[in-house]
């Protein structure tokens, strides 16, 4: 059982953090980032060519983390691989000792540095969750062929409570749960009110009893970053008040204000029934995760087997 699964099953508030692999073949780059997170988080989530920009493969980076004593969460997007490659990589990941897989659609190829690439999307993220669940629990691949050894992985999926239409967002969450998601990682939360509304809808459908929900947070470094995310990043909901608060402090103090706001959001999340943990996506700011965890009162992390 992965450390993440163990923490969640024990009823403790889980903490995970995100790590982007380097744009190169340097293994030290990912290990250096992970070192900053050591004993501060339960699991490290490794992105899969995020924003459709070519990077070291998530699987290789996760294997490096595993060899160095971390609990990696392997992100897998359906953008680049068909069902043959996806299933094969799930088996490969399990063979390498990777115990968590997060199944995603992936950022559209037109956003990245290979806009001429074909977008595969042979499976969608919900179908992919279902395929991995079948592989793990029923020991078969698509079409029914049996596996010699099933991949024992903890299955994750993403949810965006801020996408439209709101009413249907919970239907989609329900579909991911029905497909077999064990945990859900949400889009970055800046609009806590809307998130609460979404959680309430999730509780009404008893979804919080069936799945662990990790609220996503990203500390804002500056008002400039907030503006960029508000207006340029797909699926992001940054209320005017959040932007105004950052703009209200001198630019040299905006980073500190961003951390403070992130800590407040985490504290808010801890109070919401059905939220099982937090996922910190400190984009190229991994050095700050330890401080955020500390200030949010989430340290020290439970050690393995306890």
């Amino acid at each position, binding site marked *: 059982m992965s450390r993440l699964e163990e923490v969640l099953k024990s009823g403790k508030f889980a903490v995970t953090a995100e790590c982007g692999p380097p744009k190169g073949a340097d293994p030290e780059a990912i290990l250096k980032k992970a070192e900053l997170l050591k004993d501060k988080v339960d699991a490290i989530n490794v992105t899969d060519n995020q924003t459709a920009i070519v990077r070291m493969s998530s699987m290789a980076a996760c294997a490096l983390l595993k060899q160095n004593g971390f609990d990696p969460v392997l992100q897998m997007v359906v*953008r680049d691989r068909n*069902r043959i490659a996806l299933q094969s990589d799930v088996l490969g990941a399990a063979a390498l000792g990777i115990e968590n897989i997060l199944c995603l*659609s992936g950022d*559209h190829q*037109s*956003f990245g540095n290979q806009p001429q690439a074909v*977008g595969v*999307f*042979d*499976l*969608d*993220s*919900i*179908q992919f969750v*279902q*395929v991995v669940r079948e592989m793990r629990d029923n020991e078969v691949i*698509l079409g029914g062929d049996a596996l010699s050894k099933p991949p024992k992985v903890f299955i994750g999926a*993403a*949810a*965006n409570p801020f*996408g*439209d*239409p709101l009413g*249907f967002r919970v*239907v*989609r969450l*329900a*579909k991911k749960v*029905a*497909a077999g998601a064990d945990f859900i990682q949400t*889009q970055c939360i800046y609009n806590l009110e809307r998130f609460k509304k979404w959680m309430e809808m999730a509780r009404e459908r008893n979804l919080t009893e069936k799945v662990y929900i990790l609220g996503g947070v990203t500390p804002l470094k500056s008002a400039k970053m907030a503006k960029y995310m508000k207006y340029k990043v*797909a*699926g992001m909901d940054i209320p005017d008040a959040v932007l105004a608060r950052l703009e209200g402090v001198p630019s040299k103090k905006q980073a500190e204000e961003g951390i403070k706001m992130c800590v407040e959001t985490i504290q808010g999340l801890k109070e919401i029934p059905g939220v099982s943990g937090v996922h910190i996506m400190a984009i190229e700011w991994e050095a700050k995760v330890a401080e955020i965890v500390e200030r949010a009162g989430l340290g020290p992390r439970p050690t393995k087997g306890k």
Partner: protein
Amino acid sequence: MITATQKPIDEIKEAISPYKRVLVLGCASCVAECAAGGEKETGMLASTLRMAAKMEGKEVTIREKTLDRQCVKDFVVQLDDIIDEYDAVLSLGCGAGVQAVAEIFPELPIIPALNTEFLGETRDQGFWVESCVGCGDCMLYYFGGICPLARCSKQLLNGPCGGSKDGRCEVDPEVPCAWQLIIERLERFNALDRLEKIFPPKDWSKKQGQGPRKIIREDQQR
């Protein structure tokens, strides 16, 4: 309909440059509807090419003709009597038309003048939009008559993705989110529950199984 757009004129000129006698061949079907290869466009392209040849002092014969359908053998054989007068055909048919003409006249170079684009609709004057991928297993009933394979940027059968905002697609704010449209339409029919089930992975063998697809109808054969 099959939609197409004309290739850049320099690419066309380059492709026909080795030939002295060129038949510019239009098609009065789909490509006429999308104003790319009908009688009018064929005439215009032929005169542009004649004019260009004259300016460059080249001695070439360029004539035009438009068939009712380039992709149907019965129409293509109408060229039997005149084809010997030419050493190349510049086709303004879609990719299927070009290949049908090539199949019937194997000795002759058939050069495409169009880029074939997609299966789509004429939404407005001068505006065509893709609406079908020809998957071989129509699912429009489930999705309120809106195809997510053709109209969702990620071809999601269990959408929408997290990038749908105010009814727009994350890929381009000009593009309506297909899933928003599907949900609104099914709501209107009180049939939103159709989307509660998980649609299984698509059977793509019906689209790209074993080589080019064929339809064989014995009742239609003579």
